[in-house]
């Protein structure tokens, strides 16, 4: 019987982040970090990932699973499960309602129970939902390497291509830091999918803050509309400093549609995805403004 199974590999558990990195170093680039498993194990079954060794970091929950505010930023540990992001009061209070909307449509509840933020980001699937949220919110990834050395990279650098990240073979993602912008925040996640729990045909994460009747800050990112999660900078810049209006959001939507670069595939033709990207940007900005104005 046809059976999908990973290629032969070795398995070990990490006792700490530093231990995981020491193991990565000892294994000389032939190992991958294994967290929830819902991205890496399917890739291993398809033989798209063929690590000779997997290092299970699930025992590191006390060290790597958290959502907390430090100064003017939110810090999320890499092993934080999707269900925690979905249900977090702190995230909903700080960034209403972008995490809740995106996590509610990310995979299914069983996957969200165990799948992790770090796993989703390190899979670097350009259609993945949470990556869109982190790009829109201009999060930064903390990568730890040998000797406790840390470097902090922006999401453009982190996701430099489809299924490719800035994480080196002796590094691991430990945390994401999200600056809290000034003003009244509103954020939403628009997604169309073929069936419940699937990757997006197109998704757009939209966020803004409003101060004194004007858009003080904006974040827009598209999923499944390019080789990586796409940061819609031109549309963002267009709305900042102006009062929210339907006309303004329509223009931003047109810019996002023009700036994205979707492919035709089994999920739909490129021109359809481009049109949806524009509509979702316009609609998302409108809904985000409504959330922000509700305070």
């Amino acid at each position: 019987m046809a059976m999908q199974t990973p290629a032969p590999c070795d398995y070990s558990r990490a006792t700490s982040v530093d231990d995981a990195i020491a193991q990565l170093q000892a294994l000389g680039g032939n190992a991958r970090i294994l967290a929830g498993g819902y991205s890496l194990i399917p890739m291993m079954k398809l033989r798209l990932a063929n690590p000779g060794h997997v290092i299970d970091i699930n025992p590191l929950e006390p060290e790597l699973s958290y959502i907390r505010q430090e100064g003017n930023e939110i810090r999320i540990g890499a092993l934080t499960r999707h269900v925690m992001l979905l249900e977090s009061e702190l995230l909903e209070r700080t960034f209403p309602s972008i995490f809740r909307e995106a996590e509610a449509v990310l995979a299914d509840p069983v996957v969200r129970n165990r799948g992790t933020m770090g796993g989703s980001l390190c899979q670097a699937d350009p259609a993945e939902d949470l990556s869109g949220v982190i790009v829109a919110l201009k999060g930064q990834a903390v990568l730890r390497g040998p000797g406790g050395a840390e470097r902090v990279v922006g999401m453009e650098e982190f996701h430099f291509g489809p299924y490719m990240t800035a994480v080196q073979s002796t590094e691991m993602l430990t945390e994401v830091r999200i600056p809290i912008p000034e003003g009244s925040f509103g954020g939403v996640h628009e997604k169309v999918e073929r069936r419940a729990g699937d990757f997006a045909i197109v998704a757009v994460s939209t966020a803004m803050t409003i101060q004194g009747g004007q858009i003080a800050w904006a974040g827009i990112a598209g999923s499944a509309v390019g080789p990586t999660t796409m940061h819609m900078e031109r549309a963002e810049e267009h709305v900042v400093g102006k009062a929210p209006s339907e006309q303004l959001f329509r223009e931003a939507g047109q810019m996002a549609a023009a700036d994205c670069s979707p492919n035709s595939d089994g999920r739909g033709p490129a021109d359809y995805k481009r049109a949806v990207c524009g509509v979702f940007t316009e609609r998302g900005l409108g809904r985000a403004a409504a959330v922000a104005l509700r305070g």
Partner: protein
Amino acid sequence: MLVSITINGQVYSHDVEPRLLLVHFIREYAELHGTHWGCDTSNCGICIVLMDDPHSSQPPYPVKSCTMLAAMAQGYEIITVEGMPKPDGTLDPIQMGFHEMHALQCGFCTPGMMSTGRWLIEKHPNPTQMTDHEIRDGISGNLCRCTGYDNIIKAIRWAAAYIEEHPESARTAR
């Protein structure tokens, strides 16, 4: 490598390849065939079993056993459909509900559906008040190709009501 997993209260220790998936450990090594093996791509939820995490205060939660290495389950307690009935053979309320409401035709998705259904009831603060949307969303990681889901939703509701009327039938908290 030697992998020891507690399944339904019994420890199974076997020398297996590290790449062995949990679903195959359960079916081929523990020889518990109540857990089915479906799409093998993490989509269908046929292979879902309950996993009890000793480090968590949460009730046992469903995992897709085709998307987990057996080695990853060491230290956790796995509960399959064989482990749901009470020692005297009384079925778990979710199993009674699937029987009462005729929530299966071919039965292939049933073990996964019951595992997810059991968890939905256990984690909901007021299970008899679950909306259809909450149940449908809750089982969106489980595919059924026979029933159209209606009877499955009725079965989950039936079990929630039964547990409310018979609190002693609820799974004993750790």
